[in-house]
């Protein structure tokens, strides 16, 4: 078994190493073949693991691979835990990654245009890109397959590294290298909390192994830590770990890096910044459910943060004009939904939405990318329009993705989002009502921004220049095939997975929910098959809100737009200050730039110029040197040049010092 799992993890790594170190020698085709074969093998084996759990007699696997270090009685190990939760993540990660690998062949084919001619960094950028995305797949698999907190942190930081490298992939663009540094540092703010959480676990549990920690957790439920006037240990751990998740899964106020990460090439926006890496935080909290179930304060914190993010980020999506940024804010909002599910103890619903979202959001990003290459890297939806006639496959798949995103009945997103909203409605932790209202209203916002973009891009009159329109055509098959393959689960995965994931025992062994928090069990009592679920959903507010958003978007951006092409700008003008707040993204970026970035530099200057230079160097060091100099000028007269004078002085001095010492 261990060999199977090692193969799944290492196959992408091998591809990455070969493409990275020998890319120049094996050429473009060599690089993409070795990476696609590696990830393809990994995907096939991951699906076989899922199949083994579904229909075979595969048992959860939990073993160490090697001992990383032993210190002070704590064993730090690298090892795998593969249960049904892990298997689901493995399948999603490797499948989306494989699709993105294939898609990249088309998307990065003319990457030479993105580099200055003389830049050597752009010479084999195609191979380097493949190396990075395979390395990402390896890191993400290490993260989800870990059986301990150390390796979790390894994977956590490794995906962050690859994200950093890929956001700044086009390193000659100032905006890209600003965005990647920002992403890394903001994530580090989250990791700051995360590592303190791990330290707390190591201190109180004496182990970083999941199984040992989970087993010991109930026994430590009453432990208090003398901080902030006494706080429960598990609340402290839960909140600290969740701060890490807030960084990686871009929850407010640590969300600011994700929109900027769109500076990276679109395939990685789909893979890393929508489908997989950003969901690591959701996975982590779900994995830690035995800990979170013991702290309602932590759950409540998670619920409020998630719902706030879901609503406020969705609103910003309404005023974005860059096709990728609309999808990015949509991702932020959907991550908020997943996080809110966790806070309501509906971990399974969070993971379910993670899975459906991975498919439809990767689809939306890749469809956006397909439009972007057709328009030669124009991303402004105001200059698009009418593209459905030129790119039928992209259009249809994007429509499927949008319907899944807004939760159109029957599509995958419908099942997962409905489950989340209902679970939050059934939750009783502090803030549940607040969260339920925001999430429900958020459904309207989601439908509005999604179909605003959809209509502006695919319908109406073409608004791009004549030259661009003349060259518009459907993307090559390496681009459209992944779109189609992602569209299929975007439609159907909800239908097939809703029962086992939410109400069955698929995640039973992996996720632990305390009886009094079990919002999904409450829903399970009323579950009578998919049809009944859909029909029930169609009587609930989220359905009407989604349809309302869709209708408003259609009315404004399809119907009115025909007569008045400037309707969007006009609306924003009329919205006035409200639109300005949204366009400023609530001022987070300005605030961070001024207070944190500017403030740190200011502190640094003061400490350096005043602390180091004036006080220590001028005051202490050179000051004492001056004093010594002045003293020496007087003492110089003692220097007679006779050796015996010196010898006597030394001996006397030594005796005096020793006497002082001895008598003390």
């Amino acid at each position, binding site marked *: 078994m261990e060999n199977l799992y090692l193969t799944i993890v290492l196959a992408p790594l091998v591809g990455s190493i070969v493409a990275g170190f020998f890319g120049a020698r094996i050429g473009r085709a060599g690089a993409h073949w070795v990476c696609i074969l590696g990830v393809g093998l990994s995907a096939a084996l991951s699906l076989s693991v899922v199949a083994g759990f579904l229909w075979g007699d595969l048992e959860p696997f939990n073993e160490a691979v090697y001992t990383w270090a032993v210190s002070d009685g704590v064993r730090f190990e690298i090892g795998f835990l593969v249960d049904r939760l892990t298997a689901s993540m493995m399948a999603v990660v490797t499948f989306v990654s494989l699709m993105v690998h294939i898609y990249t062949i088309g998307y990065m084919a003319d990457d030479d245009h993105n580099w200055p001619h003389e*830049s050597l960094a752009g010479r084999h950028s195609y191979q380097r890109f493949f190396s990075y995305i395979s390395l990402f797949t390896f890191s993400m698999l290490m993260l989800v397959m870990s059986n301990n907190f150390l390796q979790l942190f390894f994977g956590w*930081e490794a995906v962050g*590294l690859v994200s950093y490298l890929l956001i700044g992939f086009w390193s000659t663009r100032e905006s890209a290298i600003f965005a990647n*540094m920002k992403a890394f540092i903001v994530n580090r*703010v989250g990791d700051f909390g995360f590592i303190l959480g791990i330290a707390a676990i190591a*201190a109180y549990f004496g182990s970083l192994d999941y199984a040992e920690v989970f087993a010991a957790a109930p026994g430590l439920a009453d432990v208090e830590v003398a901080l902030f006037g006494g706080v429960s240990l598990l609340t402290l751990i839960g909140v600290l770990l969740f701060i890490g998740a807030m960084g990686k899964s871009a929850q407010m106020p640590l969300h600011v890096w994700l929109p900027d990460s769109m500076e990276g090439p679109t395939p990685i926006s789909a893979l890393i910044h929508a489908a997989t890496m950003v969901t690591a935080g959701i996975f982590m909290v779900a994995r830690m459910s035995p800990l979170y179930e013991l702290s309602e304060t932590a759950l409540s914190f998670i619920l409020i943060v998630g719902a706030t993010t879901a609503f406020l980020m969705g609103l910003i999506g309404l005023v974005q004009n860059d096709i990728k940024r609309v999808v990015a804010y949509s991702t932020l909002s959907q991550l908020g939904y997943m996080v809110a599910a966790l806070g309501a103890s509906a971990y399974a619903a969070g993971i379910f939405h993670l899975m459906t979202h991975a498919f439809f959001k990767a689809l939306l990003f890749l469809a956006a990318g397909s439009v972007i290459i057709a328009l030669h890297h124009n991303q402004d939806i105001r200059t698009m329009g009418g593209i459905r006639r030129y790119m039928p496959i992209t259009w249809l798949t994007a429509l499927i993705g949008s319907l899944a995103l807004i939760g159109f009945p029957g599509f995958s997103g419908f099942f997962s989002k409905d489950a989340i909203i209902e679970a939050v409605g059934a939750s009783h932790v502090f803030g549940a009502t607040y969260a339920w209202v925001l999430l429900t209203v958020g459904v309207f916002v989601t439908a509005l921004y999604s179909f605003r973009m959809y209509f502006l891009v695919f319908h109406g009159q073409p608004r791009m220049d004549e030259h661009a329109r003349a060259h518009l055509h459907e993307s090559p098959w390496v681009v459209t095939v992944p779109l189609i393959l992602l569209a299929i689960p975007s439609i159907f995965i909800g239908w097939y997975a809703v029962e086992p994931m939410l109400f069955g025992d698929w995640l039973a062994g992996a996720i632990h929910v305390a009886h009094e928090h079990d919002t999904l069990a409450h829903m399970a009592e009323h579950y009578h098959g998919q049809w009944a679920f859909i029909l029930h959903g169609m009587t609930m507010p989220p359905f009407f809100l989604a349809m309302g958003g869709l209708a408003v978007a259609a009315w404004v951006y399809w119907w009115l737009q025909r007569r008045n092409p400037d309707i969007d700008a006009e609306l924003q003008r009329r919205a006035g200050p409200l639109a300005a707040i949204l366009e400023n993204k609530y001022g987070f970026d300005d605030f961070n730039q001024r207070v944190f970035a500017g403030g*740190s530099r200011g502190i640094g200057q003061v*400490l350096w110029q005043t602390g180091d230079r004036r006080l220590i160097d001028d005051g202490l060091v050179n000051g004492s040197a001056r004093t010594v100099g002045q003293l020496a000028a007087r003492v110089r007269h003692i220097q007679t040049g006779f050796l015996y004078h010196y010898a006597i002085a030394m001996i006397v001095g030594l005796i005096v010092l020793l006497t002082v010492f001895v008598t003390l």
Partner: protein
Amino acid sequence: MQFDVPLLTLVIWLPILGGVAVLASGDQAAELSKRLALAVAVAAFALSLPLWLAFDSSTAQMQFVERAPWIPGFGVEYHLGVDGISMPLILLTTFTTIFVILAGWEVIKQRPSHYMAAFLIMEGLMIGVFSALDAVLFYVFWEAMLIPMFIIIGVWGGPNRIYATIKFFLYTFFGSVFMLIALIYMGFKADSFSILAFHTLPLGMTEQILIFIAFLLAFAVKVPMWPVHTWLPDAHVEAPTGGSVILAAIMLKIGGYGFLRFSLPITPDASSQLDWLIIAMSLIAVVYIAFVALVQQDMKKLIAYSSIAHMGFVTLGFFIAFAIIQRADFDSGAVMGIQGGMVQMISHGFISGALFLCVGVLYDRLHSRQIADYGGVVNTMPVFGALMVFFAMANAGLPGTSGFVGEFLVILASFKADFWFAFLAATTLILGAAYTLWLVKRVVFGPVGNEGVAGLTDINLRERIVLGGLAAAVLIVGLWPAPLLEVMDATVQGLVQHIAMSKL
């Protein structure tokens, strides 16, 4: 396990005598003397390998011990030996010296044989510091070591080298005078200069405190700890690349080593009493210096400040041991802190050495260390760019690199001492990433900054071997630190047991 050959003597004296031979070979046949120097460095490394391979990691006892009378009248001996604390540092020394010799191969035009000889002699002296078990012998090596470094900065250094050398010399000399007094005092009291005898020497509290402060002055300057750190940025800026590498990779470690060999075991009660002082100084180093590093315009100064911040983890790891021992609710954690500090020393040797070499690579080409003079280096030097990003990530403590291991263990251990210690220490995750990545952004990434950058050529084979070798070391320790922790385990356990017992 004991060898018939006096291994430590060989490892100390081979480079010193080899250095003298290189010096004698002169600059007429510069190529020959460089090869001789490289051969000596490689031979010294080869000779040091058995120290690791034949090391018995099950005992805290000194190994490879050599003992002979030296100045019998005063009980001074030629007494050498290593344990799990000193042995890895000796290997770090022999390993790094090879790269320093290689790094100076083409760059040093002025008296290359003298340059190489100085480094070889210094190598021997530094190994002497790490293996001396006699206080007088230790002190001789300790002071002698300053001379080659003084010469290296003074002869091959930058324009402001005289100020830097004098500052360096006075600072370190100031510290070590007090140490000498303490050593002589204990030598007379114990009737022996054996450091091991000092460990068991009963000392009263006042004595301990005075001795502790005397040691602190010596070691804090060497590490360097805030606020006696300001010599380091100046020394680094003026030192030639090789000098910076040795300074950062090994010389600073001698301060850390001193705490473990002298302060902790000789004055456990004073250490326990004054641990708050060292912890405060360490945490100030981690936070304060990180902010200062952020605003540096000179690459070497930035890395120098980063070194001070990283060395803060070393002293923090060593001294939280006392805070943990005093706490009733945890019965372990002290060992982890000290081990973390040790790993941090080794790792910092690799990473800071590599970063100074990276700056050297750029300086050799454009003769500037100013960040503003670069930009977009990766466009003309892609291999170098990749390596520099790798070392930068290691400096930022990315898991999988050696930079993570020490910081991780120290943060974990300091949580047991006090939540706020861990809190302040963990800010390095943010601040360390900020100053390192901002450096990378301005130097490596971006469009080609100017004509000079446009004309750069990528690193050659020799430079690839140097940086690649260090990258491999960083990666191996990061992915599998178990062997390193294992060799020091028994020694550190023994040390913690020793310091937990009062001498009063």
